[in-house]
């Protein structure tokens, strides 16, 4: 079979993998897929294209920032070390980009029936392995091609052909290492998420892994703007710790590649030990990349066809049940569903992620003192966008209608369960803001109260969104909505949460503008947020029905 034919088959398989990965990440689409398949397929295509474009833009931005910093930034430690560390950071970001940006789509590989059909066709084992690797590579071909091509061209144009070629090979190796890590980690996560055995520890592991993965994405985006700072920090650290540390650094991926690239550009400018360490380590990483390339097809075949082990024990456990109160039962059920897929975990930790996305705005006032405007911005941002977590939680039950329909569950109990989970998530993110404010200079100590006095909004936002959606979509009964599919509801929920969440902050702002009195302002904020909570507690039973 020619490469062209294999490439074509791999494309079909890749499309199926993307499809399954997308459904895995958006569980609420499972029930919609039969209704409007063409819409979901177009969403998947759009999302893949956006991923590639985004990767291309980030690669360009990182590359340009890094090259510009070499010429325009005054960083201690000499331009050779500066070059080596900057290049290394680029390799590191490349690794993280490939790994994190494709993690969700790659989990679809392991539950995909995509590989079952090719396995029934007349391919031998090695052809099948090659096909799988090709299908896996096709999913990520656009971002990898952008990464491996754009930057080496830039480097060749500025630093010469030899450095350019080395950077190209090192980036190709970095991509293979990232894909290897991706295959293993996504396979592990899928097996954990589908594991039949359940313990608090395994839930913590899953949530922790999901959180780490999502934070990885944010950190990799955020790191772009901080490259000069990171480079400066590493160089300063190396200068303080001595040349021994630089040699140790030269042994570690991706710094080994950075040092070799610097040697090829500037000649033997580093101590012999550093140069030897970087060259030996680079060879080792090239070999590791080659081994991963050779064995990845086999690993993929065993994972995709042999199936990921969904159980840690082959023995049948005795029949048992853990029975708790209604509310705890509901919360436990929602937490279990929410932590079984990366898409659901994303919903759960959304307020937390929003805090990380907006936190840099606080850094503006770290020296002079953080102003109320910055605090209001961060708390307001987290409040409004965090509400997506509540909509996501309401969507978890799209799969379980058959269970719900027969249960004697009050709508208010169902909603209270969702509000409890949302509140925990929201509270955690608000407390992060509080801790950051606590350890920094503030223009007024009363600013510390802004996140604390926003806490009642956790209930108000949850109740307002739940009440609105249940009323509009379910006539007052508990109903499941789809964050992506039911965009009208999502938009309505966003408006409701904006009104409920921002009203206390608006009250604070208006009183502060009018009186200049912080104490009066925060008391206004507290009054409004408590008032909203009381009003919603009274109104909710009249909105909901069983």
């Amino acid at each position: 079979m020619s490469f062209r034919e294999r490439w074509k088959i791999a494309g079909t398989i890749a499309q199926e993998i993307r499809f399954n990965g997308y459904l895995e990440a958006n569980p609420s689409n499972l029930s919609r897929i039969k209704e409007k398949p063409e819409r979901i397929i177009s969403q998947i295509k759009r999302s893949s294209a956006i991923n590639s474009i985004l990767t291309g833009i980030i690669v360009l931005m990182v590359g340009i920032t890094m090259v510009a910093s070499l010429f325009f930034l005054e960083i201690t430690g000499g331009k050779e070390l500066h070059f080596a560390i900057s290049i290394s950071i680029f390799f590191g970001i490349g690794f993280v980009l490939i790994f994190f940006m494709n993690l969700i789509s790659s989990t679809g590989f392991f539950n995909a029936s995509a590989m079952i059909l090719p396995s029934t066709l007349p391919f031998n084992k090695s052809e099948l392995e090659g096909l799988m690797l090709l299908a896996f590579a096709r999913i990520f071909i656009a971002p990898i091609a952008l990464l491996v091509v754009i930057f080496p061209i830039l480097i060749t144009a500025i630093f010469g052909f030899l450095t350019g070629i080395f950077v190209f090979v090192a980036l190709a190796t970095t991509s293979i290492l990232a894909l290897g890590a991706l295959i293993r980690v996504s396979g592990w996560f899928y097996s954990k998420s589908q594991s039949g055995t359940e313990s608090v520890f395994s839930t913590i592991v899953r949530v922790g892994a999901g959180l780490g993965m999502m934070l990885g994405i944010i950190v990799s985006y955020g790191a772009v703007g901080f490259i000069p700072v990171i480079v400066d920090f590493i160089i300063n650290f190396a200068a303080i710790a001595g040349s021994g540390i630089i040699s140790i650094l030269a042994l570690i991926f991706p710094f080994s590649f950075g040092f070799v690239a610097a040697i090829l550009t500037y000649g033997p400018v580093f101590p012999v030990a550093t140069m030897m360490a970087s060259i030996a380590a680079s060879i080792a990483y090239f070999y590791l990349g080659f081994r991963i390339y050779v064995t990845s097809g086999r690993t993929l075949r065993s994972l995709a066809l042999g199936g990921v082990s969904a159980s840690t024990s082959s023995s049948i456990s005795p029949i048992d049940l853990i029975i708790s109160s209604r509310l705890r039962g509901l919360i436990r059920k929602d937490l279990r569903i929410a932590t079984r897929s990366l898409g659901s975990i994303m919903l759960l930790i959304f307020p937390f992620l929003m805090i990380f996305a907006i936190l840099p705005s606080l850094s503006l006032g770290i020296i002079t003192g953080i102003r109320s405007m910055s605090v209001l911005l961060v708390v307001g941002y987290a409040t409004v966008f965090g509400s997506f977590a509540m909509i996501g939680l309401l969507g978890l039950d799209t799969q379980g209608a058959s269970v719900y329909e027969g249960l004697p569950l009050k709508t208010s109990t169902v909603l209270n369960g969702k509000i409890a989970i949302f509140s925990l998530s929201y509270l955690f993110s608000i407390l992060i803001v509080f801790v950051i404010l606590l350890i920094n200079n503030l223009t007024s100590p009363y600013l510390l109260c802004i996140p604390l006095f926003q806490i009642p909004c956790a209930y108000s936002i949850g109740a307002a969104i739940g009440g609105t959606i249940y009323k509009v979509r379910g006539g007052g009964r508990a109903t499941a909505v789809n964050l992506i599919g039911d965009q009208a509801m999502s938009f309505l929920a966003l408006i409701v949460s904006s009104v409920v969440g921002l009203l206390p902050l608006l009250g604070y702002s208006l009183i502060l503008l009018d009186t200049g009195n912080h104490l009066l302002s925060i008391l206004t904020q507290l009054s409004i947020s408590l008032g909203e909570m009381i009003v919603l507690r009274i109104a909710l039973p009249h909105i909901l029905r069983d």
Partner: protein
Amino acid sequence: MKVEGLGMNPIEIRDLVKTFGNIIAVNKLTFDVYEGEVYGLLGPNGAGKTTTLKVLMGLLDPDSGTANVFGINSTSNPIEVKKKVGYVPEEQLLYNSLTSREILEFVASVRDLDYYRAKNRVAEMARALDFTNQYDKPIITLSQGNKQKAMLLIAMLHAPDLLILDEPFSGLDVRTTRIMKDVIQIHTEKGGSVLFSTHIMEMAQGLCDRVGIIDEGVLIAEGTLDELRTQSESEEATLENVFLKLTGEDEDVRKGVDALRGALDK
């Protein structure tokens, strides 16, 4: 056992009307299900069977009329109705990522069941349904038959007096079908009642004490098989023939078969 007087029977439906826009799904429907009885609600697709069951469960509001379960009104008090009923809906929409154990834990918690009674009931039922080795597997990995067993476990966990089953035999293999039939029979032997909808005539003929035939939302016939034969004036006929005659579909079916025979001859 038939009990006279409103509010005494497991199910009492009176003059039930439910419309969806211009479509009348259920039209002036009236029937009872007695204690210890298996009642089959028969009808072609779109006849209004599922709508009737959903109104009974308090999942849909009727336009007029009443649906009572053990004297409790389904519309005004659906929570109390659901406490007394084990319901298996037609669609198998379970939480794919959860195991049966996790779903049953959720159900037992919501129903506030006693730990030992619930545990023993699950253990006995899982053994009887040959479900023990499926208990800790995620729902997504289960076959359709095993999913149906999981739904049956969920519906019967609280030992309900009344089972409401919507098309319980659709897509089941021979073994699971037999298990479902046995479950229904054992349940009624112990004094429970069953209302189930189906369009599989053999099931209704073999299982039901009485059947109600519903077409375009209207109950066109009701009674035991003998009573229905009398109503349709077709002695010795099977329930299928009685059904086709009463719903006026026998002539359509005959014409369709003739046309098919002609097409296949060419």
